[in-house]
């Protein structure tokens, strides 16, 4: 070993037995070096003679400084390696707090990881904590993850009574329509997920629980429709309506429908289901019940919008934009 480099104090020592270079040795060496600042020295005790060539070669490729080797105990070598300048700062304190602004170059690095400099920028567009991540998001995620339900176990499928054929047909149509809408409810918020910077991973994870919930809705509605023997017809009106969800927001969806006079919902099937039979008097009651349902949904939407912080008139306006679309 180079005499003027003594005395060198190794910050870490590894006993690698007689592990050859390609048999897991780097699993010991890499982390030991990664824990040190540039220039920090690792001593490696090894009985593998081939290491005298493989280790310096690897060090040159990685720009670590191979300082040489001395005899250690018995026939073994003591290699000294100083950590090179590449690979970024190490030993930075882990910070688990959500940053005010996500760094595009930290990519999918989990929050708190040390990030090597030189990484490419990722195209996340939701980058600022104030607009993306409410402080209670971690708690919301834990609640949502803990409160999931099972289509298989939580719906008493065997207790669903058989219905007259006309009603089963209507159930199938309504369920098919609902499944179509729930599929859009799965796809539309999914588009936000890849925009959220992973520094706010809890937001993306919470969104994932929402997506899993929408997936269960699809599953449940399709299963019920299959029991009815039909998924009904997926209409062009509904197709147009849902496409606008992919392409723009609620306002545009309402505008698209405004000119058509169409309500993209299987209204007649819902009326029939509310009536419970094809008897004309019952159908009249069913039509009343359907109108009541629309009003109830409108009021419920306003309530939810107001509790989310919208002013009364804003909440009413937003809800009315939904009303013609039924869902």
């Amino acid at each position, binding site marked *: 070993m180079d005499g003027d480099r003594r005395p060198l104090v190794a910050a870490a020592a590894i006993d690698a037995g007689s592990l050859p*270079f*390609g048999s897991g040795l780097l699993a010991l060496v890499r982390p030991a070096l990664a824990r040190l600042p540039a220039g920090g020295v690792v001593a490696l005790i090894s009985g593998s003679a081939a290491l005298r060539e493989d280790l310096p070669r690897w060090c040159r*490729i990685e*720009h670590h400084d191979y300082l040489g080797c001395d005899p250690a105990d018995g026939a073994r070598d003591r290699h000294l390696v100083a950590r090179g300048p590449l690979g970024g700062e190490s030993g930075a304190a882990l910070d688990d707090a959500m940053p005010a602004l996500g760094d595009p170059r930290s990519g999918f690095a989990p929050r708190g990881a040390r990030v090597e400099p*030189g990484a490419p920028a990722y195209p996340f567009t939701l980058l600022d904590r104030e607009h993306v991540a409410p402080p209670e998001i971690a708690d919301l995620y834990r609640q949502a993850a803990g409160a999931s339900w099972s289509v298989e176990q939580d719906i008493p499928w065997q207790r669903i009574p058989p219905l007259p054929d006309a009603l089963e047909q209507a159930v199938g149509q309504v369920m098919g329509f609902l499944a179509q809408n729930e599929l859009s409810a799965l796809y539309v918020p999914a588009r936000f997920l890849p925009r959220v910077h992973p520094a706010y991973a809890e937001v993306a994870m919470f969104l994932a629980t929402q997506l899993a919930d929408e997936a269960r809705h699809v599953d449940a509605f399709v299963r019920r429709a299959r029991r009815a023997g039909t998924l009904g017809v997926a209409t062009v009106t509904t197709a147009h309506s849902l496409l606008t969800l992919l392409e723009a927001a609620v306002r545009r969806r309402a505008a698209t429908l405004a000119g058509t006079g169409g309500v993209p919902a299987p209204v007649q099937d819902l009326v029939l289901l509310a009536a419970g039979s094809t008897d004309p008097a019952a159908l009249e009651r069913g039509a009343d019940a359907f109108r009541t349902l629309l009003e109830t949904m409108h009021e419920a939407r306003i309530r939810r919008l107001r509790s989310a912080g919208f002013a009364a008139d804003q909440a009413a306006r937003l809800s009315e934009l939904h009303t013609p679309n039924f869902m």
Partner: protein
Amino acid sequence: MNPESLLVGAVAYDPKVVTVWEGIRDVLHDDGVAMDFALYSNYERLVHELLAGHVDIAWSTPLAHVRIQKATENRSLSLGMRDSDRDFHAKIVVRKDAGIRALRDLEGRRLAVGSRDSTQARILPLYFLGEAGVDVSRVEIVAFDSDVGKHGDTGRSELDVLRALHEGSVAAGAVGDYVWVIESAAGRIDASQLEVLWTTPGFDHCMFDALPSLDSQRADRFKTALLAMRWDDPRHRRILELEGLKQWMPAREPGYDSLRAALDASNGW
């Protein structure tokens, strides 16, 4: 098209070469050096195009480098190399069950080597074995002539050698130490079956070559821009990773003497 633009020729040994050179062009452009590139399918063509003056600079394998120097009577300009081009070695790897204890034991045995134009997996290991006293004519050479014309750039023939060793169809094989260490680090070498018998003396690898007629200021601007590329700069990192280096280095010449001697000895020019 900028008439001042430097035209760099390289060999398209892999689709990533396009990404590398698009990237280098952009980096140099940011540094005020106008550059474009032309890709060829093999190094013989690239050498020809440089000597004919169709490109200003060639990104050369060691074999292309020494051929350019010979053709220009050593007046060509060497502009720079990768850190990873310095102090290359070749490894003679043997199967542990082959009973090969010394270099002379290779005589009469099957030795896998890479492509005939691979400096590190064929030309120099066979030359150095001869220099070390092995009668190479008595060694049964099993050649993997894949990607001929690419001068071993793809590393495919070296991986073929390692596969033959693992399968046991040969007793020994020659590979570059870069492939050996990278494959070992990736856990793809079975150390219970294979071990290194011998490591050759060192030699150097790729080089940027230019004709002596290249204007020295233009050459200097190119060199300066290359040397300024940094591993921890996001604009440079991807290019450096794809091209297999962490830092560009100034040129140096002694590392090619053994290759010249090997080509002299084998009429390999």
